[in-house]
């Protein structure tokens, strides 16, 4: 070959590594679609401010993971010598987002660290002032199980949708309106659906201000929406310290399968409330949760790879997730109505029931806003924070049941 020929051969080699060439290969169009979806998530996150803290990393993860030949989401490999009882490492290879996924998501570590930080940011005061609102956090979990039933039905009757009970449970948990819980359950029960489930969970959490108000208005009367609640009592520091420990204690006795989630949440909350570990609580709420959010978001986005994402299952997940949210909102409101009818002494505004789906603190703000529309002096925010944080506990409990029961029945 002449020198000129060698040069042009090199350019041809380089052409074989371009994204354009990659996109033109078989299946390459799927990568294009997913990259566009990734940019779409960035648009929603930045322009519409839909849960940007999660959707920016997820969108970026989706983009980076679908770049041909770049292998940014490639699984990790540990290279070295195998000897009796040990692997002497020489090198670790793999894409950097793939490493986050392997070490942080498949292990369940990242969602638990997020939950620790959430615990350190949560104030259970409003819940302690009005413990009945825990029931609203229970009622809103109906969405989880209805969606689960729907997923089982789709899996059985719709060709092209392949959900089994493990998948159905993971899909249902979207209705918990709690990102880390959804990711934790899906990473345990149904890894292949993780991307779609996480995206659905965070998308609908972001859409709470759009999804919930019509349902809330449809299920309540004008009078109910105007109900004024009693001012919450002062909650002592001692109660706030004992509460996370007592929830943990009940969970230990009755539902160990929920203790990773609730244990992390309550550890974070105890660190915040106990007053002698502010250093740790500050770090949980800031550096630690932020670092993990970046890595978790990228890793979740990396599961939006064309082969796994572009199919009927994903459509089913998006549809069922929406159903789960709507039903959770409705059952929350309905139980609040019922409670209001049963106890006349302490009136309950049914709007706060919708906050039971979690989606902290957005759902509580929505309840507040819808309430203000009817009565500009009726601030429901604090009252809605009770069911709101109860919803976090409720979906962790539901997650515990699913993790314990599905492997037995599925």
């Amino acid at each position, binding site marked *: 070959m002449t020198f000129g020929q060698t040069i042009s051969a090199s350019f041809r080699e380089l052409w074989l590594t371009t994204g354009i060439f990659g996109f033109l290969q078989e299946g390459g169009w799927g990568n294009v679609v997913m990259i566009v979806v990734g940019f779409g998530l960035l648009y929603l996150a930045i322009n519409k401010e839909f849960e940007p803290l999660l959707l920016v990393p997820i969108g970026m993860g989706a983009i980076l993971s679908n770049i041909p030949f770049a292998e940014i989401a490639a699984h990790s490999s540990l290279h070295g010598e195998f000897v009796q009882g040990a692997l002497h490492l020489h090198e670790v290879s793999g894409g950097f987002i793939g490493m986050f996924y392997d070490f942080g998501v498949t292990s369940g570590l990242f969602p638990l660290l997020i939950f620790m930080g959430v615990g350190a940011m949560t104030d259970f005061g409003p819940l*302690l002032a009005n413990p009945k609102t825990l029931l609203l956090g229970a009622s809103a979990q109906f969405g989880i199980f209805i969606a689960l039933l729907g997923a089982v039905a789709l899996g059985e009757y719709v060709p092209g949708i392949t959900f089994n009970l493990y998948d159905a449970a993971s899909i249902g948990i979207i209705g918990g309106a709690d990102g880390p819980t959804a990711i934790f359950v899906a990473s345990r029960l149904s890894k292949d659906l993780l991307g779609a489930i996480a995206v659905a969970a965070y998308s609908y959490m972001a859409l709470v201000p759009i999804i919930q108000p019509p349902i809330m208005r449809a299920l309540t009367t004008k009078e109910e929406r105007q109900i004024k609640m009693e001012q919450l009592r002062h909650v002592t*520091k001692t109660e706030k310290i004992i509460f996370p420990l007592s929830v943990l204690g009940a969970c230990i006795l009755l539902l160990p399968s929920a203790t990773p989630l609730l244990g992390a949440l309550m550890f974070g909350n105890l660190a915040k409330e106990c007053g002698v570990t502010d250093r740790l609580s500050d770090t949980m709420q800031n550096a630690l949760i932020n670092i993990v959010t970046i890595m978790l978001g990228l890793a979740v986005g990396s599961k939006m790879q064309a082969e796994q994402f572009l199919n009927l299952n994903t459509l089913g997940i998006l549809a069922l997730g929406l159903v789960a949210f709507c039903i959770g909102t409705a059952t929350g409101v309905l139980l609040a109505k019922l409670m209001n009818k049963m106890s006349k002494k302490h009136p309950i505004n049914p709007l706060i029931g919708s906050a039971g789906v979690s989606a902290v603190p957005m759902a509580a703000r929505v309840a507040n806003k819808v309430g203000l529309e009817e009565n500009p002096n009726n601030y429901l925010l604090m009252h809605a924070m009770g069911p709101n944080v109860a919803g976090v506990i409720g979906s962790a409990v539901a997650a515990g049941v699913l993790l314990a029961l599905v492997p037995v029945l599925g």
Partner: protein
Amino acid sequence: MVSGLIVTIVGMSVVFLFLTLLVVTTTYMSKIVLKFFPEQEKPAAPAVRKSSADAEIAVAIAAVKAHTKS
């Protein structure tokens, strides 16, 4: 389908049982705390001092610095 129904029934029952139990225990816990460990009038002090070890380190270091710089 049957197992889905079972999960649903068992699941929602456990969720309600568990959170009802929490309502009961929390209510009693609060009663006991408010009765036997009522909050002191001035809870401001503990809020001001941060983690004690930190404070001590800060004190020690501050003292040392103040001195060595004088």
